[in-house]
């Protein structure tokens, strides 16, 4: 078995006095797609944000037990640099939120944060990133179009491209298809399948069919507890926990 790239270890999280994640345990192995399923409010976003330490920035969040490892490093240790972590573990928000800038600037933002690149270098990064999300052909002639003028689907891809531009190891996608129709959902799923070659992906979704289609491993979250975590086919075919079974059959049936 490979060394897990992300390892969540007895992890609990409070917002103020309220405990929203309870003793979560699971490992993610490189170049796999992991799906986190569960109803709204079950803590999927909170868990994803915890993995890239987005929770300790603006929210009143506190880790109450356990920790998370990225490549065997405790990311909640004092001396650990969260800025570096976020460059390796990219987070794509549920809500499309491109910068109010043009397409090029959106993609180039991350890479140019740390050091200044030569223009050609940056051009190349932008091209690669947009290519990776199948946007290059569509947008190569309108790179200075405002990101707000793109379609929703394009914006989502742009946000993924923006994260990819940093060449991360892990991508965290928070309900990427929440507001999309089936055609666009299919396109995004296709994209995830492509990205899998180069990245480890953790995707939060409440769409069970989607989880079944695209993931290698899946976890079922409910009210902040990870009820079951297993290989996707195992989880969906014969769930061990009756709660999981109820949820899955309720949703599928």
């Amino acid at each position: 078995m490979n060394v897990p790239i992300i390892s969540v270890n007895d992890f609990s999280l409070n917002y103020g006095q309220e405990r929203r994640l309870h003793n979560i345990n699971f490992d993610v192995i490189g170049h796999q797609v992991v799906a986190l399923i569960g109803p709204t409010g079950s803590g999927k976003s909170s868990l994803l944000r915890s993995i890239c330490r987005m929770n300790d920035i603006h929210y009143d969040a506190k880790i109450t037990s356990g920790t998370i490892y990225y490549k065997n490093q405790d990311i909640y240790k004092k001396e650990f640099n969260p800025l570096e972590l976020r460059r390796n573990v990219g987070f794509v928000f549920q809500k499309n939120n491109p910068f109010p800038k043009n397409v090029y600037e959106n993609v180039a933002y991350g890479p140019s944060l740390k050091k200044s690149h030569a223009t050609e270098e940056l051009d190349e990064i932008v091209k690669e990133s947009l290519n990776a999300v199948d946007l290059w052909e569509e947008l190569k002639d309108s790179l200075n179009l405002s990101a707000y003028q793109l379609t929703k689907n394009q914006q989502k891809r742009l946000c993924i491209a923006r994260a990819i531009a940093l060449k991360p190891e892990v991508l965290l996608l928070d309900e990427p298809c929440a507001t999309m129709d089936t055609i666009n959902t299919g396109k995004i799923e296709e994209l995830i399948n492509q990205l899998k070659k180069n990245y480890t992906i953790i995707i939060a979704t409440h769409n069970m069919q989607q989880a079944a289609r695209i993931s290698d491993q899946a976890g079922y979250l409910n009210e902040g507890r990870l009820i079951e975590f297993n290989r996707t086919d195992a989880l969906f075919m014969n769930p061990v926990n009756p709660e999981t079974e109820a949820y899955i059959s309720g949703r599928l049936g």
Partner: protein
Amino acid sequence: MNLLKTRSQKNGQITAHSRNLLKRFFQFNTYLFFTCICLIFLTISINGSKAIFTSKFPYINTAFFTEKPQTLYVYKPKWIIQKLSALEAESELIKQEDSNYETKHLTVKKEIQLLEKQLLNETIKFTEYQIQNSQEFDPNIYLRETYPFSAGGIAPALFGSIFLILGTFPIVFLMGLSSAIYLSEYSPNDKTTKIIKNSINALAGTPSIIFGVFGYGIFVLAFGWGFSLLAGWLTIALMTLPTVISDCEIALKRIPERERMNAIALGASKWQSIRHNVLPYSINEIFASTLFNIAKTSGEAAPIMFTAAYAFRDKLPWQGLENWHDFFFQGVMALPYHIYILSVKLPINAYTRDMQYGAAFIFLLFVGSLSMLGIYLKQLSINKQKPYL
């Protein structure tokens, strides 16, 4: 059933009617206020333009902007004054006797008007500078009156005000911006922050004279700076900051949280996220608020009266400095204080009016254009924020 219906209809009509009345009432108040403002501005502009514009090229009375205030010496022919007072006494008598009042009174009144015109024409005016080169007039024939500050120009006050504003601006802008950034972006959500925020809001309503006295006690006396530009800058800045900080905090808060998270998720530091994704969209507004509020506070006489402004100083701020740092420790004249002195310490008559209205008019233009610039910048900033709103 039918009865009910008609009654409710009637009720509906009454409400519609009273709503209309209410609308009229609100409209009336608005228009009344606006008319008053226009009247004030018009009076100042019309009377002020007489002092500032001339009928000959270059159509502007340049002396008004380049010269120091001078005393005006007026020599009035005594015989006209005597005749005038005699006529006025006569008109009083006519009023009391009340017989054939209308026609008689009219003729006297006309005579008085003619004489007054003659008096104006035959009165000889000298400014302070001119009088040194001219002979005295016979005090038996002429009555001498002197009006301080009513000749010459307002240069020291104008430049004093400009320097006061120029120095205050960077202090307010930097302090306001950094405090607002701290309060909006960095401060923990705790009691101390709450106390600070509430105090700042409360300070915004503090009367300006309090700041003036405070500045006098601290900067002028305790620090020993005397009446100085520096003391004036800091006093005006202290007075302006509460409003600017609250304004700026609101401007920063208007940028949605996700814009910051967005950058953080891409590996930006907190400061980078603020600098790249918050400040560019609110800096214009912050600049505008600074300008707008300085325009307001620099128009107050109270805070500078005790800290920076002299009633009269015949040097311009850059004249007669021995060291470069003397610049900061010199008192200056300032327009609001100058206007206060012109209107409170002098009578309002044909000889003082020009200077009074002229100074007020220039000050109005000065403050008005700063405010307009502020409003324009704010609009620019709002346009830039449109994607968020």
